[in-house]
């Protein structure tokens, strides 16, 4: 058990991470509405506790992979905010040099080896990174972040089988936000039972309150410990909700008016507010919390300025980096 003061430090760090994600995403929503950002952008608002909780259980050299809704994963693992914002603006200073946009984020220096939008596409890749760790014995753990829609892809099951059979150090972190694009889970599945796949494939599976960062952190810590010790993978089904539409800034753009009741209900379970209340109960003051928000706002503002003022990539670079060159290999 953590001592009280250590616990407050931990909770405060989680709070900073989540407020940062919220601030970044809400600013991006405004910039999308203003049409300053043009690439398809899938916002993470409402799901902050999952990325924050899982990544807080990881070491700096552990790997994560994500999908199309991965700003939160990138930030929680320590990806540079300026480079994220510049990437959304299609600038040369972006984390992918303006070639990737919102759906292709990378920060190898902090273990973000790539996010890519074809759902479930990065799940086997995460398993492969874990296979590399198992072969090398380097003690790293890899997390595959994906949504509930990805659990319908065959490769999800292929990957779970391969990982469980070889006891690979990988965590399948499913963010079940109830929707894949415009369709509710129960319009796509016979049952609301993603977690059942875990048992079928021979690994522990847990359903979590994905809006409770402490519940996520606790389950992730256990899963990371198991993975690192050679006990194999875990499936974490984190129940959460995305506040905004599938893509873009609209609140219920693609799923109709009926989502409004749900949205109100889930806003009542806001993971950021819940953590703030917890911190207040632990002795943090409103002023402390406001200070965190002010710092984040200033940082996000600076990132937007950085992105706006950065240069676009040179047109001459259009066909660079299709192949890794011999000189890069030597370096």
């Amino acid at each position, binding site marked *: 058990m953590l001592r009280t003061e250590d616990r407050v430090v931990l909770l405060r760090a989680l709070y900073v991470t989540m407020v940062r994600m919220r601030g970044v995403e809400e600013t991006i929503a405004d910039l999308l509405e203003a049409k300053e950002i043009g690439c398809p952008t899938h916002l993470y608002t409402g799901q902050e506790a999952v990325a924050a909780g899982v990544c807080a259980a990881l070491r700096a050299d552990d*790997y994560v*992979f994500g999908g199309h809704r991965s700003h939160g994963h990138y930030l929680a693992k320590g990806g540079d905010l300026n480079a994220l914002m510049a990437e959304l603006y299609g600038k040369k200073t*972006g*984390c*992918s*040099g*303006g*070639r*990737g946009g919102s759906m*292709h984020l*990378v920060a*190898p220096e902090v273990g973000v*080896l*790539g996010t*890519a939008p*074809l759902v479930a*596409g*990065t*799940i*086997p*890749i*995460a*398993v*492969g*990174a*874990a*296979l*590399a*760790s198992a*072969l*090398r014995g380097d003690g790293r753990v*890899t997390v595959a972040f994906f949504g509930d829609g990805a659990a319908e892809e*065959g*490769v999800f099951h*292929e*990957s779970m*089988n*391969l990982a469980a*059979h*070889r006891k690979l150090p990988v965590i399948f972190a499913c963010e079940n936000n109830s929707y894949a694009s415009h369709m509710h889970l129960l319009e796509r599945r016979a049952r609301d039972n993603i977690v059942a796949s875990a048992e079928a494939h021979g690994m522990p599976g847990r359903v979590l309150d994905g809006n409770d960062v402490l519940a996520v952190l606790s389950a992730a810590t256990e899963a990371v410990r198991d993975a690192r010790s050679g006990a194999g993978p875990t499936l974490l089904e984190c129940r959460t909700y995305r506040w905004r539409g599938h893509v873009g800034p609209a609140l219920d753009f693609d799923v109709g008016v009926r989502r409004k009741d749900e949205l109100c209900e889930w806003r009542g379970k806001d993971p950021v507010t819940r953590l703030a209340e917890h911190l207040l109960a632990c002795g943090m003051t409103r002023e402390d919390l406001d200070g965190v928000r002010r710092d984040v706002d200033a940082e996000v503002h600076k990132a937007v300025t950085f992105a706006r003022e950065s240069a676009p990539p040179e047109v001459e670079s259009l066909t*660079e*980096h*299709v*192949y*890794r060159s011999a000189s*890069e*290999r030597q370096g």
Partner: protein
Amino acid sequence: MTARSISYAQAIREAFAQLLAQDSRVFVIGQGLWSPWYVGTSMQDIDTEFGRERIIDSPVSENATTGAAIGAALAGMRPIVVHPRMDFMLLAVDQIVNEAANWHYMFNGRVNVPVVIRPVINRGGEQGAQHSQALHAWFAHVPGLKVVMPATPYDAKGLLIAAVHDGNPVVYIDDRWLYGEMGEVPEDPYSVPIGQAAVRRRGRDVTVVATSYMVVEAMKAASALEEVGIDAEVIDLRSVRPLDEATIFASVKKTGRLVVADAAWLSCGVGAEVAARVAGGAFEALRAPIGRVGLPDAPAPTSRALEDAYYPRAGQIVTEVRRLTGGGKSRDGVAVARGRH
């Protein structure tokens, strides 16, 4: 280094063994790697020599297995994925095309995928439509992938080693019809540069560009053509992407005629690509239409009677060359016009 002749299959196995022995980052994953029949003798007992931790016989999950190799490559390993029938690899096209091919570009060169994907072509033997396809043109269409097709034992070893060291996703395609071919192979490890064609036979009258097993048939065709007074230059393409235009152009500028022999369907195939490049880059040298030899527009049949008619052989290359050259000398020795030579 002693000159020694070994088979194409032995050359592949030697490349695997040397790669595994020299670099702990190299491992192999795919279906059938512990089986005595899946990949013939090309990897026989490699699992007992290097252990089943590094030679992983995978679940029946092509997409996940290929994705896992891609992920391991991103994390610093040098995996080789084996698909013992190229047809099975189609289940992994998502990972190969959507992920592996794009990764380096879409992340601005910050991560790379040094993975080798080895699909084996298993034509003939009454194996039918789903155990026989040669789909190299599909993969060569995609920027970010390299596609090599060794035709000799020397290249089988050298191109596999080059592919593992390349730093990019490389599709290395071998054909079981070549496994018994013998040739000189140095014992020490060596690389054959990816993207360079090889001139297998010098000639003046026609350029035959061939891929993979069709190089064997092209060489037989060249011997037959010699008998009728036609001197064919045979180019072994070796690498479908990148494509060595320079060697092809230089040859066509000398011979003035081109036939492309590829054991795949003609539509949108390698023959079409080579023909288009020559038409665009060496058109003035052409003295005849461009000829192509390939499979008829049908899936592979199983019946031997149909199969024999299905796969192109030297005779079709000879026929195509004679059509373009106006025939060469006929069998009774009467000279036939064949251009300025």
